[in-house]
């Protein structure tokens, strides 16, 4: 069954065409004053369409967002993260200790400790 047949099944009886004509005639018979009032009503509605959308919330929203951002910056300012405390020994000690550890010659010293132990013993013996 096609669409046209379905529509015909539910179509109003033929006498309603006369009713439709009578109703059309009744609108044609409207007086001038009523037509004028309808015209004014339509113009008012169309003026509503021409009016730009009132985005009254935009300034208020922008001000609120700016205030919120400012408050966040005050509470949690954009500062560098807190420094990690240094190792107590390194922090409290002087720089020489570090040099002793990292210097290349000291590494050689560590590799030849027996020699320096003998040297110390010789110094004590001679001296």
């Amino acid at each position, binding site marked *: 069954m096609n669409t046209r047949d379905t529509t015909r099944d539910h179509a109003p009886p*033929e*006498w309603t065409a006369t009713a439709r004509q009578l*109703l059309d005639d009744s*609108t044609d018979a409207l007086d001038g004053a009523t037509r004028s009032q309808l015209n004014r009503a*339509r113009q*008012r509605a169309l003026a*509503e369409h021409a009016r730009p959308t009132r985005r009254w919330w935009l300034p208020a929203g922008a001000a609120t967002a700016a205030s919120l951002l400012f408050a966040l910056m005050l509470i949690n300012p954009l500062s560098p993260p807190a420094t990690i405390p240094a190792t107590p020994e390194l922090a409290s000690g002087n720089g020489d200790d570090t040099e002793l550890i990292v210097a290349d010659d000291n590494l050689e010293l560590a590799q030849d400790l027996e020699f320096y132990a003998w040297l110390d013993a010789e110094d004590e013996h001679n001296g």
Partner: protein
Amino acid sequence: MLENRVRTDGQPWMLVETDELADGRAALDRFLRGVERRALRMAELTTGQRDEALDLVQDAMLAFVRNYADKPAAEWPPLFHRVLDSRMTDWHRRQQVRGRWISAWFTRRDDDEAGDPLADAPDLREPGPLARLLDADAGAALQAALVQLPLRQRQAFLLRVWEGLDVAQTASAMRCGEGSVKTHLWRALNALRRALEEHQ
């Protein structure tokens, strides 16, 4: 009031915007101009007063333009009548509440109280009561019969028969199912036929 801003295609931005707005306004004007008189008569059949009917139509026009002007024009008829139907239903309810105690003895027959539609079914092949009324004041008889209809039946008849909406569009305008539209329309046709035959 044009500005010197220019779109990438070289056309002035504000000029294009204004043209689009003017086109939309012209289309709306054509649509409302075409529907406003029938809308007034529908509202008048509900309110029985022209001033009240004009107020309802104006409210409907404003609400329609505010809410549905951006919809495709093909969708405008059922949307406009949905707004108008809503206004008329609200008016009808207010009147019912207002007059409940005053006219408690006067009750208009409700849809649910209607008799068996099959028992009252008209012969659709019959030329119809209006054919015999054409020489008389058929318009007045039809109006009197329409006024006597319950609101939902009258709306189903007017939207489907007069306004030419199909069943789905009528259901959308009346915010009900298609089955309800068919039932309302069936009862309206029966009631109109009876009323017009009695008028002869």
